[in-house]
């Protein structure tokens, strides 16, 4: 009887602990966001978005950083999306279940787990040095493109897999070729899922600083890049730079820039979730 009571006690205790742990995660998240909001929200204004970097915290802005971020997003999308989606299509629709296919699968799962800084080293040696792109936007975008490639491939495969066999059958039966079937039926039907993956990939890319630092992106770039060969900085690097300045006013700037960065990240994730839900609701096979 005492044993049984003890068991029930343990059960209750663990339930309490479970709630506690779940809340810890959320509470820390809340404290964290609140802290940053309190620190940085007051600093955000039109000038902050529009000013060039400065030695004076009050005068410094994130103009070059967010333009750089935008450039990097666009360029790496242009590189990674076609590649990643094509590779996903190949693996799901074309790749026979042979040695190569299973090797590719292991390989992609491995790439997904390679730390981002290693991609930085790859970019440094191949893009920055061998291809002599230096610390340019193009070198950075290529590096980030490779970094997010596995994410795009995996989500593309998942969403293609979700397209029912019957749609492919119907298309083949009407005389469509494999590519026609893929292009006219499979891709449109899996578009939502692919887009979700692509946006998640973007939200990953937008927060990366380490690989860009390795390839040599600079902190003090007092002009907005205007071509892929220009030097650049991005929001996370600007934040890193401000964080490492000891003066409190720069910490305020960092908090403000973090709010902008988080806003972008959350917005991208929000769009992804929204698209996923919308697509799931709309397409019921």
């Amino acid at each position, binding site marked *: 009887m005492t044993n049984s009571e003890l068991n029930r006690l343990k059960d209750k205790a663990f339930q309490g602990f479970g709630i506690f742990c779940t809340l810890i995660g959320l509470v820390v998240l809340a404290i964290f966001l609140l802290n940053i909001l309190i620190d940085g929200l007051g600093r955000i204004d039109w000038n902050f978005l*529009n*000013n*060039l970097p*400065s*030695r004076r915290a009050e005068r410094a802005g994130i*103009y070059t950083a967010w333009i750089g971020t935008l450039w990097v997003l666009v360029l790496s999308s242009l590189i990674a999306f076609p590649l990643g989606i094509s590779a996903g299509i190949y693996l799901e629709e074309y790749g026979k279940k042979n040695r190569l296919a299973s090797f590719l699968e292991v390989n992609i799962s491995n790439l997904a787990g390679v730390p981002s800084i290693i991609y930085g080293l790859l970019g440094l040696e191949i893009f920055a040095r061998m291809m002599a792109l230096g610390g340019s936007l193009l070198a950075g975008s290529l590096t980030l493109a490779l970094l997010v490639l596995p994410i795009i491939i995996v989500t593309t495969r998942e969403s293609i897999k979700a397209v029912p066999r019957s749609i492919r059958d119907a298309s083949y039966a009407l005389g469509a070729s494999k590519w026609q079937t893929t292009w006219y039926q499979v891709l449109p039907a899996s578009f939502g899922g692919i887009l979700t993956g692509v946006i998640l990939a973007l939200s990953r890319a937008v927060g990366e600083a380490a690989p860009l630092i390795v390839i040599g992106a*600079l*902190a*003090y*770039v*007092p*002009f907005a890049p205007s071509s892929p060969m220009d*030097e650049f900085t991005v929001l996370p690097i600007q934040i890193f730079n401000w964080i*490492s*300045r*000891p*003066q409190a006013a720069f910490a305020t700037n960092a908090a403000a820039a973090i709010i902008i960065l988080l806003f972008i990240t959350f917005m991208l994730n929000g769009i992804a979730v929204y698209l996923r839900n919308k697509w799931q609701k709309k397409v019921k096979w």
Partner: protein
Amino acid sequence: GPTYDENADFTLEGDISIDGSSTVYPITEAVAEEYRYVAPNVRTTIGVSGSGGGFKKFSRGEIDISNASRSIKEGEAEAAHENGIDYIELSVAYDGLTIVVNPKNTWAKDITVAELKMLWEPAAQNKITRWNQVRPEWPNRPINLYGAGVESGTYDYFTEAIVGKSHASRGDFTASEDDNVLVQGVSGDINALGFFGYAYYEENKAQLKAIPVDDEDESNGKGPILPSLESIKDGSYAPLSRALFLYVSSKAIKKPQVVRFMDFYFENAGPLSREVGFIPLPDEKYKHEHEKFKQFVAKHTISATTGGNTDTTKIAQ
């Protein structure tokens, strides 16, 4: 978009690339930032690779101007000449290497050069790890060291002045080219002791405590001396005061935006170096350095005339 000075020269275009000393960085950054209002279409980038890193790039011709907190070394100079680069050294401000501890540190009120040597020399590595090993009155608690990275002029200067041999020190300390990291380290660590340029101390006085240094040499001031405007200027803050330099290459001055930048530098270095926490040179010294630069420019324009294509020379004249 950003706003500009009313006299801004929009016709001036092109890049200026600067790299090198983190100590000099704040002045050059300030100058570059002000220069932006004057020449909005010139793109100035400033890296922070340390004086050594800067010279490496400078002698390969990768950058126009090198910030330096020490003079160029023989090897570096040779490398530059091999690459056909002539250069000029220009002083821009004075600095006093400052020894700092955490403000909560109540025991370290001064320190001698001998103690610093004992603490920083290579033999100290993994041996001198507690405060009371440096001076027995100090508490028995760990000592965490923060100092300039090995590519930096500060490191060279410090090891030379304290240890007695350039580039020789213990290796178990937080070494960063970025002095901000050091400031942050010391300001957050009660057991810390660090050194870096005076400007970084000035900027972050609230989070740091400078300790006076005694070189036990009565000839240049008695007892422990704190770095300050006066003690650095009058040389009593020995052996840790020094001059800061810019190196400009002969190739760079072919670019009008660089020449204009240097002119602007000397016109404004006094107030700006004060603003960011350095000790300005006397006015006549700035004039002198500016003159030196002008002669350097003239020399290279003339040598281009005699040795080069006549057509372009005529236009230049």
